[in-house]
């Protein structure tokens, strides 16, 4: 006899709820646009545009609070596919995509496309190679899956420790970007903004774990999508007369080339730009947008693409969402929807960069006759751009205009001289996406420390101690990351690239072996984890002495080599160590079966029935 499983039926009113949330957000934008015309100050508009959606996200999190383990760790396994896809897409792209990637495309144009392609292909790899099988296994975390697959505490704890590197780097990057937006648009210092953002993200995770993250994250994704689309469509209509920026920005290439030539931009060669990927500090944009392989050569482009693809496919914060939908088929479709959403973003980002670059350098060409453009004072005031006529010739060349990489998305509405409400909307959108991603990364770390470390040490069947451990871990990690950000000056794009390299090197090979090779054993898994992480770590710490991993493409190359070595180590240790146990083989076969109950849930139900029987006796 087995215990009856919970019904995993989604809430039938979700569509109505999110329709209302979307309408409320759009109404807020319309209202603020009207109030701005009626004389509201920019500060009041920005405060309303940022704080009211934040209040909405926290209200949703409060409404999703839970002390049920299944709800806390896997959102009750009843999240509809598209809602899960929205949060997966927000986690994959995050504020890093919204601010730093768009900025990188602005600076190095063609060459930055490797990152967007990497994210998109990575989601395809995850959806095909990992997600459906992880859904069948149903473990709460990625390390828990490895522990259950090989019945190995060592593999579980090792994976839990090794996932800290990629996840904490991405968490720090997202919190930094969210704090940047908050400190730019609210009267708060950056330090205070970091603390407030960390508290906000931790509060959402503590209140309802994966459940709160899912429902707040869905609202944040909607706000992010609306906030990115509206200003971009308005600019597209102004420049091309068509409301489809993705397909019309090609018409602007002629004008862009003219503006770039007027600003003395000339083709660059790989190695000429140092660093190849732009840094966050205001810098000159000197590479023509369409020039291929001017900052990174073809090999570097392929390597960067592959390292982002492997890293995205094996990112623990993405794969932790593999157990939240009702079935394997739902999870597979959900991954496909997430892929579509990320691809849509990757298609959109270059249009934003092209419009921003065109508007900026077109106005720069007019400086000798018309003087500095109106937007320059606004951008300078927010430390997003600086201009100085260094050679005193009365014109402004590309080398005389310094632009902050992470502020390009925020600058677009100002460059197009749109009402301020659209700048605030863009800021609220980027903030929302950064918060959704930060929540996913923080929850992944907290859940793993609770389930994979505390849960292994304390095997009592009570839910409350495990939840309390998760709450404490989430709070402690948020505080630690906030303190780190207060001390360290970091480049979010570099941190994100490092994180994806670590994720790809450490987890891609072991997951490939665990999910696709029945002969893989716990020793193979441990060897793969240790080799992938170890080689990547050595490349980053000692590689500088040998010229390895100094550039972003070099780091990507190191991660690919580490992944290959880890794959070899996993295969070697599995073949030359003891053969897999009958349990390992049975688990593998069950995991590959498309039908039947979730393995973890069935084990839980059996344990519950056994303990009930024991209590009766």
């Amino acid at each position, binding site marked *: 006899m087995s215990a009856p499983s919970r019904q995993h039926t989604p809430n039938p009113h979700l569509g109505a709820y999110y329709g209302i949330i979307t309408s409320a957000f759009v109404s807020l934008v319309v209202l603020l646009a009207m109030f701005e015309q009626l004389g509201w100050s920019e500060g009041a508009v920005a405060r309303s545009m940022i704080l009211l959606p934040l209040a909405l996200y926290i209200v949703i999190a409060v409404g999703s609070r839970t002390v049920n383990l299944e709800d806390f760790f896997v959102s009750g396994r009843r999240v509809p596919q598209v809602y899960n896809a929205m949060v997966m897409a927000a986690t994959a792209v995050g504020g890093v995509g919204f601010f730093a990637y768009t900025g990188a495309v602005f600076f190095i144009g063609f060459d930055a*496309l490797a990152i967007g392609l990497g994210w998109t292909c990575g989601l395809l790899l995850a959806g095909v190679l990992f997600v459906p099988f992880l859904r069948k296994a149903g473990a709460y975390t990625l390390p828990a899956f490895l522990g259950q697959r090989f019945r190995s505490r060592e593999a579980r704890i090792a994976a839990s420790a090794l996932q800290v590197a990629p996840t904490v780097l991405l968490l720090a990057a997202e919190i930094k970007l969210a704090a940047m937006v908050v400190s730019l648009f609210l009267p708060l210092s950056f330090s205070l903004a970091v603390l407030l953002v960390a508290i906000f993200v931790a509060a959402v995770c503590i209140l309802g774990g994966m459940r709160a993250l899912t429902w707040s994250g869905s609202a944040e994704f909607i706000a992010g999508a609306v906030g990115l689309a509206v200003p971009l469509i308005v600019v597209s209509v102004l420049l091309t007369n068509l409301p489809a920026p993705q397909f019309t920005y090609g018409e602007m*290439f002629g004008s862009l080339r003219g503006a770039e030539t007027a600003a003395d931009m000339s083709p660059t060669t790989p190695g000429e730009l140092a660093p190849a990927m732009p840094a966050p500090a205001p810098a000159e944009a000197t590479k023509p947008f369409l020039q291929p392989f001017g900052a990174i050569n073809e090999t570097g482009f392929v390597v960067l*693409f592959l390292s982002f693809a492997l890293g995205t496919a094996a990112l623990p914060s993405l794969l932790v969402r593999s157990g939240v939908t009702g079935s394997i088929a739902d999870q597979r479709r959900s991954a496909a929807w997430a892929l579509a959403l990320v691809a849509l973003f*990757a298609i959109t980002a*270059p249009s934003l960069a092209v419009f921003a670059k065109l508007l900026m350098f077109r106005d720069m060409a007019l400086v000798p006759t018309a003087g500095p453009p109106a937007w320059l004072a606004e951008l300078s005031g927010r430390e997003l751009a600086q201009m100085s006529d260094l050679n005193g010739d009365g014109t402004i060349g590309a080398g005389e205009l310094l632009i902050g990489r992470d502020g390009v998305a925020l600058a677009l509405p100002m460059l197009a001289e749109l009402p301020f409400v659209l700048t605030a909307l863009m800021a609220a959108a980027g903030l929302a996406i950064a918060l959704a991603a930060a929540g996913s990364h923080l929850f992944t770390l907290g859940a793993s420390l609770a389930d994979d470390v505390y849960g292994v040490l304390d095997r009592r069947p009570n839910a409350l101690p495990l939840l309390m451990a998760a709450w404490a871990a989430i709070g402690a990690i948020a505080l630690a990351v906030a303190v780190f950000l207060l001390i360290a000056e970091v480049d979010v794009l570099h941190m994100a690239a490092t994180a994806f390299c670590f994720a790809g090197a450490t987890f891609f090979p072991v997951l490939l072996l665990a999910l696709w090779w029945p002969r893989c054993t716990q020793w193979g898994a441990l060897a793969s984890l240790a080799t992938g992480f170890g080689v990547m770590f050595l490349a980053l710490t000692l590689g500088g002495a040998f010229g390895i991993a100094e550039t972003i493409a070099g780091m990507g190359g190191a991660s690919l080599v580490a992944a290959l070595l880890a794959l070899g180590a996993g295969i070697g240790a599995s073949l030359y160590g003891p053969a897999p146990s009958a349990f390992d083989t049975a688990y593998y076969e069950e995991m590959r079966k*498309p039908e039947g109950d979730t393995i973890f849930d069935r084990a839980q139900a059996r344990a519950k029935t056994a303990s009930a029987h024991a209590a009766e006796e």
Partner: protein
Amino acid sequence: MAAEQSEPEHAVRDRHQLRTLAVAITTVAAALSAVIVTILYAVSLNRLWFLHFPLGFYLLAQGLLIFIVFVGFWYVRVQERIDHTRNLNEEVA
């Protein structure tokens, strides 16, 4: 009797796993090879224009992404059909 039953079950399972592997390899290989070939020929492709975009740029910025999404949804459809066939065959076995 048990041995007679287990043999077709094994055959069904093995066929399902083989087809799953084949479709996964096809999907991943199609996406990766398309991207890598386009990167290698991007400079040459840029001499052609499509919808006001240089073709190499267009493929890396949009065309391949649309192709990858198409491949992703194609994979979902084919894999669901493969899983459905296994379930039917297992019921018959």
